[in-house]
């Protein structure tokens, strides 16, 4: 009973830990790309999260550790991935920006949001993340991580009938 309650409580601790660590990391490294930083925080959090799980469960004399560790890895990384996208939404989502602009009474929500600045913002972010590089006024693909993700999503769209 106690073991299962601990396993149910751990994900909540993980989320809280991610939020606090991320807030500290943003203040410590303000110039690092937002997406890079949050990914680093999440990935490097795997070890302390597993450590915390083992620390809390050790006194409970658990018999089968393997499924418990698998559970912790799946749940932590699932939540971490969710947290990454939550941050990404706050950073890059056009809909969230529109909602906030309407909330703050900035025009009707679309007046200040020019397509040109939106494209430039994204090019700058892709360069900062090492996915694009600029030379002689032209942008070329540098890293393949996001490009491969984009190509996989294009395939999945076809599966869903888009």
């Amino acid at each position, binding site marked *: *009973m106690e073991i*299962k309650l601990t*396993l*149910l409580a751990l*994900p909540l601790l993980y989320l809280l830990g991610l939020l606090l660590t*991320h*807030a500290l990391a*943003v203040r410590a490294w303000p110039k690092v790309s*937002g997406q890079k930083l949050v990914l680093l925080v999440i990935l490097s959090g795997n070890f302390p999260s597993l450590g915390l799980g083992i620390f809390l469960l050790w006194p409970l004399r658990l018999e*089968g550790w393997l*499924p418990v560790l*698998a*559970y912790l890895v*799946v*749940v932590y990384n*699932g939540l971490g991935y*969710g947290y990454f996208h*939550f*941050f990404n*939404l*706050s*950073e890059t989502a*056009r*809909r969230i*920006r*529109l*909602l*906030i602009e*309407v*909330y703050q009474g900035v*025009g*009707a*929500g*679309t007046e200040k949001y020019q*397509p*040109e600045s939106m*494209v430039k*913002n*994204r*090019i700058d*972010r*892709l360069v900062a993340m090492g996915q*694009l590089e600029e*030379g002689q*006024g*032209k*942008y*070329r693909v540098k890293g393949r991580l*996001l*490009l491969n*993700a*984009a*190509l996989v*999503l294009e395939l*999945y*769209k076809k*599966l*869903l*009938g*888009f």
Partner: protein
Amino acid sequence: MTFAQIGFGFFVFATFWILHLLWWRLCRPKGEIRPLVLAFLVAPGLLFLGINRFYPFWGTLDLALAFFVHLALAVVYIQTYPAIASTIPSFRILIGVHASKGGLSVPEIEGLFAQGELIGSRVELLGEDGLVRSGEKGLELSSFGRLLAVVFLTYRRFLGLQRGQG
């Protein structure tokens, strides 16, 4: 806890993913947030509650652990879905640059997007999800839209960041 709970969480997620695939192929719903919440959170939640009430092959805590595994996978999928359903401008840029020979200039990259595509479609989706409506002075937020705006503003302030650039 055994691998059975983890496996059952994966199984439930896979089942609802297939149902979602069929639903979308047969009749894609309008909006994004509500149908996904229904397909991956509400319906599976009811399933787990139903199992716990009428066919409790495990105890409540074991079922809750399996539900957490499903929940972790569902959150991953729901967060990825907007990238699938709509144009992700960064991805469009990468694919466009990748397909070009010798790279693209900024005006050429801007040319990858149709006029109004970047903003109009977003406003429509906000309306379909019931987050904004047209009022006398332009767009107005629904109560849920206002809540979302406050949540994201508060979150950015907590992190010590300015509002996102979109």
